[in-house]
């Protein structure tokens, strides 16, 4: 088992630890070794908690020795975006301003859920400052690099969360998604990511970016690993004001049903323009494999993106107002002017955007009366180069950073669950396809993702440069 640990996913590690084929201490040590060896190149981690991880692994091993149930994720090494509270470690959220803050007294809810399930926290992960970015570039802590091409960005804002999984440093991570920050880096790094329904996974202990739009979710290299993580993450939390009261649901058991009985379609109009051919080819490939030619329109998607943009800028700016007043010079130059501009947005625009959100939610509810899963590109292009300021979409040169989210923003705007599945074609950077569902229908998305993976249509191999034995 030891030599397979690099390739092993969340569930296979848990199964091996639970059945005593390997000790949690070994799985934790293997992850820490890989992080030591590779993170100097990738820059995924802002903190590695080696001692703490080995202590926790020892606890898991003694529980097993005592014959106790160590939890469904026993011995699974994991790491989290550094906006999630880790007891005793300052929650940076990608900033230097918060490095001086007092460390939290308890773990964020999502971190606690995974630890309670036996998973072992090995560190905190790099991100765009205060989650305001789609590239994983951070001036203070330097960019996280894409394991498939080190000259390219990881995607963001949960850059470290995606790159560390794509390089096989850890099999499971957590990140957050406001406008695409789980889906974009999953796509750029060629792995699976789940943005659950808004309010379905507690955000308690997360340093928020935009409370109206923030979600917490997992990254992994398989659909079933995402499902296993979602099973322990979802459920009510009275201490998160937007958390749904809906009881926790276990979705893992449903995966083998695949796409049977599900009505599938591709998002048309807006989602078929303003992207490079690779984005639409990835969607076509998945749609063909699933045997669907049906196209549905999501009405006014462009305006949904506009509204998400306004709410983000305004809420984000307001959230940071005290620091913008007293120490704006300490913000990352990549976020500073946008946060400042966000504080100056007229209220009438933001109120309109919030009211438009209700209207758009009604239209999408109507769409989902006739369809279960909608396919759309995750990003308009593959991972851009680090420092690349513009992209060309439909022959028009546009600023890269705000436009990477054009296909993800109109979906998170109304909190719909999305699984991003990775499409790898020979000689190309990976692309992601969004599987979009109605609220609370994560299981349907994971079923489709599982089927696509089982049939070899989508996959998340560890990036070649980071395999111990290189693939030809």
């Amino acid at each position, binding site marked *: 088992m030891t030599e397979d640990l690099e390739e092993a996913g969340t569930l296979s590690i848990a199964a091996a630890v639970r059945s005593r084929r390997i000790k949690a201490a070994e799985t934790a040590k293997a992850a820490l070794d890989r992080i030591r060896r590779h993170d100097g190149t990738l820059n995924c981690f802002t903190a590695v908690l080696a001692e703490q991880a080995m202590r926790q692994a020892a606890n898991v091993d003694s529980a097993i020795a005592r014959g106790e149930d160590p939890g469904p994720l026993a011995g699974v090494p994991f790491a989290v975006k550094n906006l999630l509270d880790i007891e005793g470690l300052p929650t940076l959220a990608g900033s230097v301003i918060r490095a001086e803050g007092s460390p939290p007294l308890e773990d964020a809810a999502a971190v606690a859920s995974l630890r309670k399930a036996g998973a072992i926290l090995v560190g905190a992960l790099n991100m765009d400052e205060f989650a305001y970015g789609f590239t994983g570039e951070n001036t203070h802590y330097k960019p996280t690099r894409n394991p498939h091409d080190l000259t390219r960005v990881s995607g963001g804002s949960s850059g470290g969360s995606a790159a560390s999984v794509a390089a096989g440093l850890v099999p499971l991570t957590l990140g957050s998604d406001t406008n695409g920050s789980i889906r974009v880096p999953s796509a750029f790094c060629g792995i699976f990511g789940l943005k659950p329904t808004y309010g379905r996974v507690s955000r308690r202990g997360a340093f928020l970016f935009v409370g109206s739009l923030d979600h917490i979710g997992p990254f992994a290299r398989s659909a079933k690993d995402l499902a296993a993580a979602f099973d322990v993450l979802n459920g009510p939390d009275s201490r998160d004001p937007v958390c749904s009261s809906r009881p926790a649901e276990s979705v893992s058991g449903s995966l083998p049903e695949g796409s049977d009985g599900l009505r599938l379609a591709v998002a048309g109009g807006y989602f078929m323009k303003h992207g490079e051919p690779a984005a639409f080819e990835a969607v076509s490939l998945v749609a063909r494999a699933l045997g669907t030619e049906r196209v549905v329109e999501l009405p006014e998607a462009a305006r949904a993106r506009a509204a998400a943009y306004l709410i983000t800028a305004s809420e984000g700016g307001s959230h940071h107002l005290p620091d913008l007043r007293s120490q704006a010079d300490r913000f990352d130059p990549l976020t500073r002017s946008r946060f400042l501009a966000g504080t100056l*947005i007229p209220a009438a625009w933001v109120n309109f955007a919030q009211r438009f959100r209700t209207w758009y939610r009604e239209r999408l509810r109507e769409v989902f009366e006739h369809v279960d899963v909608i396919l759309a590109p995750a990003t308009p292009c593959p991972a851009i180069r680090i420092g690349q300021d513009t992209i060309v979409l439909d022959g028009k040169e546009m600023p890269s950073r705000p436009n990477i989210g054009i296909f993800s923003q109109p979906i998170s705007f109304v909190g719909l669950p999305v699984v991003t599945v990775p499409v790898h074609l020979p000689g190309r950077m990976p692309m992601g396809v969004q599987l979009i569902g109605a609220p609370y229908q994560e299981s349907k998305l994971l079923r489709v993702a599982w089927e696509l993976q089982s049939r070899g249509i989508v996959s998340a191999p560890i990036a070649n440069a980071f395999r111990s034995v290189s693939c030809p």
Partner: protein
Amino acid sequence: MQIDNPDVLDELMACHVEYEKALMENDVATLDALFWDSSLAVRYGVSENLHGAAEIHAFRAARPTAGLQRTISWFKITAFDEASGVINLEFVRVLEGVERQGRQTQFWVRFAQGWKIVSAHVSLLPGPQTYVDAAASRIGVPVHSGDRVAVIEDLSRIGTIAQFLMEFPLPQEVEAAPVFQP
């Protein structure tokens, strides 16, 4: 009265070319020479009221010489008989890193010594920076000079996005969801 005598228009055109060249090169001597040397001359600038040739000269001599370049986007001369005319023009100029729309009116009179400006008025249209400065001051967020241009550009982009959103005919009865339940 004869309007737009072609010879007079040609002369005023030559005056304009000379004035504009002197302005771009900050040639204060030529600019002074083109103004009426009288206490009755008036020049209203973007942020200064100048009465009399002495004040006009003092202002020109003291003004910073960088960034005077402007691009003329609209231009019209109107001549009245042999001895007077008006030059109106609109221009684009970058001020403190921000592109601004401006306009200028000059009233020219022919004296024994030649054509002179007896009255001039220059102004700038309000731009997004007017809003940024006012709102930032009201909210109490200092926008430092190094960030100002980027903030103005960001807010202009947000304004374009907002305009597109606000064009949507949203029914008045639609309410926002205070705690959003998908």
